[in-house]
């Protein structure tokens, strides 16, 4: 699972960690044939991000770099404004940059909700030819409505996403965007997003090319399913992903009762809290119209921690969480 392991491939290229001063890259003959990964060791730092980037700039043919991954830039609590400044400053030397992953930080390095992001609008304005942008971490993340005509893939993975970011996305004109994936998270980990905030995205007015929509990892997964069931944007999708969240029978029922999903190639509801009966019903309904439904990873919910012995009743019979929080 991506959240636990560093990528070995990004944007179709093998990932190459740039590394510290001792790292040797002489065997990389084509600097454009790898996805470069830049990060520092925040728990034993020998070189800060600025110094590492400076060496990167000296060592690698920036002009040929098409894919860049930024891992940990500092210890938790420090935002990536320095990283953004360096990228922006070097925009003219990065004419081939097409894919960027800001915050490729696995759980062992920093749990997702401890990653501090910042306003990333400048990435879209500074790199109009970017086709793939992936972000991890919702804390401090900001976005302003912009128009971008190249971006095809946008993935934002969080343990808690702000409603302002989602609303801004809905107002962005992303004319080439084919794939939009948002991990919405839970309030406990900073989510302020509500179903209403999704209105712009679900209307799809500014997302004419959208083919895949993922609204995942949410504690309001049922409400999202209810909205999606009647959302105009669904008609243009080929795949829909409502996985990793707290989806139960009510959300699944809303999907069955809503607009036809028969045009989809697939729907992903994996990691869900559906009853066996509902899971069966949903699978049957999708199979009948030729839609591949992923209903794997059924969840039971955690038993409550209350001591119910002798207690009259406990109203927290079980706790349900999205797949990735903390």
């Amino acid at each position: 699972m991506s959240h636990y392991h560093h990528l070995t491939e990004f944007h179709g290229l093998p990932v190459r960690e740039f590394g510290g001063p001792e790292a040797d890259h002489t065997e990389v003959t084509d600097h454009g044939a790898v996805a470069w990964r830049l990060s520092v060791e925040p728990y034993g730092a020998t070189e800060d991000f600025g110094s590492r980037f400076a060496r990167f700039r000296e060592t690698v043919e920036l002009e040929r770099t098409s894919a860049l991954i930024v891992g940990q830039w500092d210890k938790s609590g420090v935002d990536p404004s320095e990283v953004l400044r360096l990228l922006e400053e070097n925009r003219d030397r990065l004419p081939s940059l097409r894919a960027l992953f800001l915050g490729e930080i696995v759980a062992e390095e920093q749990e997702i909700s401890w990653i501090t992001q910042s306003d990333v609008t400048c990435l879209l304005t500074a790199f109009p030819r970017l086709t793939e942008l992936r972000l991890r971490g919702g804390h401090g993340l900001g976005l302003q409505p912009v128009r971008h005509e190249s971006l095809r893939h946008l993935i934002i993975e969080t343990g808690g996403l702000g409603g302002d970011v989602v609303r801004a996305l809905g107002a962005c004109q992303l004319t080439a965007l084919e794939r939009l994936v948002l991990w919405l998270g839970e309030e406990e980990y900073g989510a302020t997003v509500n179903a209403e905030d999704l209105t712009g995205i679900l209307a799809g007015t500014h997302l004419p090319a959208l083919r895949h929509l993922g609204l995942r990892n949410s504690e309001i997964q049922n409400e999202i399913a209810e909205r999606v069931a009647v959302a105009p944007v669904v008609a243009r999708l080929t795949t829909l992903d409502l996985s990793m969240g707290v989806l139960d029978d009510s959300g699944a029922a809303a999907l069955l009762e809503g607009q036809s999903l028969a045009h989809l190639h697939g729907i992903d509801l994996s990691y869900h809290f559906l009853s066996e009966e509902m899971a069966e019903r949903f699978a049957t309904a999708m199979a009948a119209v030729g839609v591949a439904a992923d209903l794997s990873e059924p969840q039971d919910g955690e038993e409550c921690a209350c001591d119910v012995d002798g207690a009259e009743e406990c109203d927290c019979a079980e706790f349900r969480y999205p797949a990735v929080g903390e």
Partner: protein
Amino acid sequence: MIRCTVVGNPENRRVALFAAAVRAAGLPAPRVLPWLEVLRTLRDGGPGALPRFRPGEIVRLDSPGENDEVGVLLRDVEDQTRVEGGALWYARFTGAVRALTGRALADGARLLDDPDELAVLFDKRLCHGVLSGAGVPVPRSPTSGPGAPPVRGWDDVRAAGLGRFFVKPAHGSSASGVLAVQTGAGGRVRAVTSVERDGQGHMYNSLRVRAYDTETEVAALVDALAPDGLHLESWWPKAAQGNRAMDLRVVVVAGRATHAVVRASRSPMTNLHLGGVRGDLAEAREAAGPMWETAMSACERAAACFPGTLCVGVDLLPGTGWRGVAVGEVNAFGDLLPRLTGMPGGGAEGLDTYGAQVAALLRGTAPRGRGAATAQAGAREPAGAGDASGAVPVAGAVPDADAVESVPASGSVRAPGSGDMAGPVAEESGVLCGVPGAWRGSGTDVEK
């Protein structure tokens, strides 16, 4: 003929497993000298009353853990699931070890352990200092070595300025009292730990790992743990297997990494009794690639810091993506991995960890006795051992001649039972040192 004595808790599997390995090698069953007897003798009669050893006898020290009576004698705490009392435990245990090994050496016996090295192994600060000084890769620590300032409470922890880190009782083991702490923007603090506090502020080891989300709670826990001594260590981002972070327990016998298990967990504590699971060793080896040799070599270098100790269990932390390795801890009694046979190429294929130790003994690669360890160990309290009269301060000793129990000169010899080799493997619970030995389950105390 080689004759062995095990100082341990006779009812413990460790003793039975070692005895089985000794017998399997065709040697006479070892005699067992119970810690309970050693501690009571020291308490009631002082070092002079300790049982005698025979010249040439080989003496193995094993864990005093998982025995309530021994636990009470070592730290005056009735409930062995309690966390407190580590400093007292350390003083009494190392004191007893010094007295006992002093006696053994004076009688001409040969030790498979070293009292000074044990004193280092049971103090995480000293152990970190020794490893670091020997160039063994370790996570960063502001409490490394005998010269580091003590951690008096949460304020000192805060002042250390670590972002994500472990707070560990200096003398704890098997995650007892350990907090995995994360601090972030806006004063956010979170600690994940198996420690739970009751209404009176008493701390217990719980099998349920929980999170404390306010600085007030975390500070109160750290302040309560501090009097027994604390070690701080930077977080070391570990490699993962599937969606679990992993580390390795590597057993090093007579200088060679012989046995290894992968422990994988979703919580910061990989200990198997805290929700950790056995990972896949072959998969880890493959993921490690050339780093595997580096990892095993780090374990062997860590063990080499303790040349007077036949066997240690090294916690090896592979970094994210196996880009580096670090040694987390070195455990004196880290060999309880029943029925696990040696890994390919480790020189103990087909043998369990105990069999490997007996084989080393027969090969002549085991420590020859008090080694050159003292200089390296750098214990805070210079050893007074080697002196047969054993002028070792033993906490709680009452020199009351009337109270001295009659102890046979040879010590009370108990043949261990046939051993519970068929016992549940699940008990390789990661409680590998057993200090203290007990954990609270949900509602009932669980002896691990």
